[in-house]
């Protein structure tokens, strides 16, 4: 009695593998995945995404920062260029000013205006007696004299050297 009752029930599992095979062919075998595994994949992804986002953000920040640095450098470069040009121009102007102040015409004019210099009507040059050449010059003066310049000035006559010398030594 009981056998009759259980027999179909026991057979049924025998046929089950075929049924399962058929079923598994239609539907993939499903199994319960451990919880730890189910969490790992999203976490990695999330971590990856986070890292990538952070890196990207940092890169953007870095690029922006670099751009700022470059811009600042560019401004600094332009400022230095301007400063160099200004200094060069200032140097040139000062050099011109020095050259102008040094020019003989300005020196003479300044000496006349500020120091009261009066240009002499004629310049007296002193000729050391030992150096006087001996070639018989008609207008040569005897040794030991101081002459005035130019033959047109000869009328003023020679001056005694020994009289002038002490005054020269005082200078």
């Amino acid at each position, binding site marked *: 009695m009981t056998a009759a009752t259980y027999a179909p029930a026991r057979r049924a599992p025998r046929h089950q593998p075929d049924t399962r095979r058929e079923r598994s062919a239609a539907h993939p075998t499903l199994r319960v995945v451990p919880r730890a595994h189910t969490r790992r994949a999203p976490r990695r992804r999330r971590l990856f995404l986070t890292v990538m986002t952070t890196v990207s953000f940092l890169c953007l920040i870095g690029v922006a920062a670099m*751009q700022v640095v*470059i*811009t600042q450098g*560019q*401004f600094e470069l*332009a400022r230095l260029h301007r400063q160099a*040009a200004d200094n*060069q*121009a200032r140097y*040139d*102007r000062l*050099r*011109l000013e020095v*050259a*102008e102040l*040094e*020019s*003989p*015409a*300005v020196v003479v004019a300044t000496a006349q205006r500020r120091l009261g210099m009066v240009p002499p009507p004629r*310049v007296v*040059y002193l*000729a*050391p007696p*030992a*150096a*006087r*050449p*001996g*070639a*018989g*010059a*008609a*207008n*040569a*003066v005897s040794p030991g004299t101081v*002459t*005035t*310049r*130019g*033959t*047109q000035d000869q009328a003023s006559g020679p001056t005694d050297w020994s009289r002038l010398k002490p005054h020269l030594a005082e200078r």
Partner: protein
Amino acid sequence: MRRTADARARRRLWTFFVVLLLGFAVIGARLGQVQVLAADRYVEVGEQQRVRTVVQAADRGSIFDREGRDLALSVQQQTVWANPRLVNDPLQAAAALAPILDVDVALLRARLSRDAAFVYLARKVSDDVAAKARALSLDGVFFLDEPKRFLPAERLAAPVLGKVGIDNEGLSGLERQYDTALKGRPGLLVAERDPHGRDIAGGVRTFRPSARGDDLVLTIDRSLQYETERALGREIVTANALGGIAIVMATGTGEILALANMTAGANREPGAPPARGVDPGPASSNMAVTNVYEPGSVNKMITIAGTIEEGLVRPSDELVVPSTIQVADHLFSEHDPHPTEKWSVTEIMANSSNVGSIMLGQRLGKLRLDRYLRQFGFGSKSGLGFPGESSGLLLDPKKWSGTSLPTMSIGQGVAVTALQMLAAYNTVANGGVYVAPKLVRSTVGVDGAQHPTPPSPTRRVLSQRTAAQVTGMLTQVVEVGTGKAAAIEGYSVAGKTGTARKPLVGVRGYKEGAYVSSFAGFVPAERPALTAIVMMDEPTPIYGGLVAAPVFAEVSRYGLRQFRIPPPPRTEKIEVHEASPSAVRDVGEVGGRTATTISPPAAKTSGP
């Protein structure tokens, strides 16, 4: 009902989709056209808007004297320019700028109204003017730096230095001759800039810096140049002359130490008649090199040197010299009539005798005279390379007339520059060796390295003995002859006076009463260190011995002190055949024919 609404919505969606698609298609097509088909053009347009190419003018090299003192230098000045498209009210802007820039309002307005992006308003204005213009803060008005040429010693040696144009190109003088070296290489800046002219950070930026031009170091000494110009200018006033030239040269090297070209009325308006004896100042050109004149008696030195070199006469040989001499159809006479006398060659030189010189010239002959004139540097350029330098005028002997020999013997019928005549006297001073004149000592590169110019070429013209004999004769000119005013205390001076008639311009003949007076010589005669020439244009009195010789003495005296040239020791003497004081006349001389001598004879001729 519901089905109808759905269909309508679907149609709307399709319509929107199609419109959207068409819109994108149009945008895509335009994108393709801009980015692919016309990409080059738009890239170019974009670059034109952003990329600015600025040519930066190179700093022009400076010009120094022999001691490194500035004679010409460039300094940055502000140039005012405008972009008329950015100027809102041209009339108002012009009215505001005109008094500051000292430019006519109408002219400024016209410039500010032009259809252009760049117009100059005023170039290279002073800093004060630029500051005032900047303070107006006018829209569309901008400023840029440009180098401007300055002569710090005012107009000292200005005709030698020359002029520079508004764009820094050499126009005349040394500025032109050495323009390539002086101007340097312009720089180039390529940069992306925003509409305000500021550099775009990270944009395209290439910069090739400009290379400064080389500096020139001249042989001129600034102090001597000043004294030379001062002395010459004073003599122009004293002698009521039209102008004058003075050159001082270092005997051994041919280096020009001072080169003064002065004219009366230097500040007169262009086109105004020539002034005489007033307001002397630098001439507009370097006349000493570019203008020729008939030298007159200073040329007799060459005639006499040639005859001595050829062994035809000695300084002591005597000739019977009458007061006139007939050659071909002309009667040549002395400037001061005298009885027929026996004069030594030295006395002929000391007296500056026309007749005696003609007689010596006849002994020399035309071919040899021509050869000596050319060997002394006449008829060819000096080698200075100065712009506009003249070769002088020297006829081919084949074209000489019957009177060419006598006229050239006394320095007429030949035209030379003052520099050529100076070089001729320098030849005697150098013991018979011609030394080409030199004006530039060296160039200095950007790296500061100095590149000396090659030494002046030389050639022997006279033997040392002849040169010494001629030197002795020239000292007699100064000691007892016509050039006494050139004497310098403590030194022995050798030189020769000249007073030549001035030819008419464009027609044959000479200008009545107009003379060019000169003195050329060197000092110390025993050991020459300085050679100089002074030339006065139409002075009063006319004699070179009275107007040019004193300037020679004054300038040489200063030069001797400036360069610390002591008198030679007594042991050094010159070979001199002394002229007899009784045979020498006191005043000056006049070379060439006078109006009265062109008529037929009545001649007293004598001598071989």
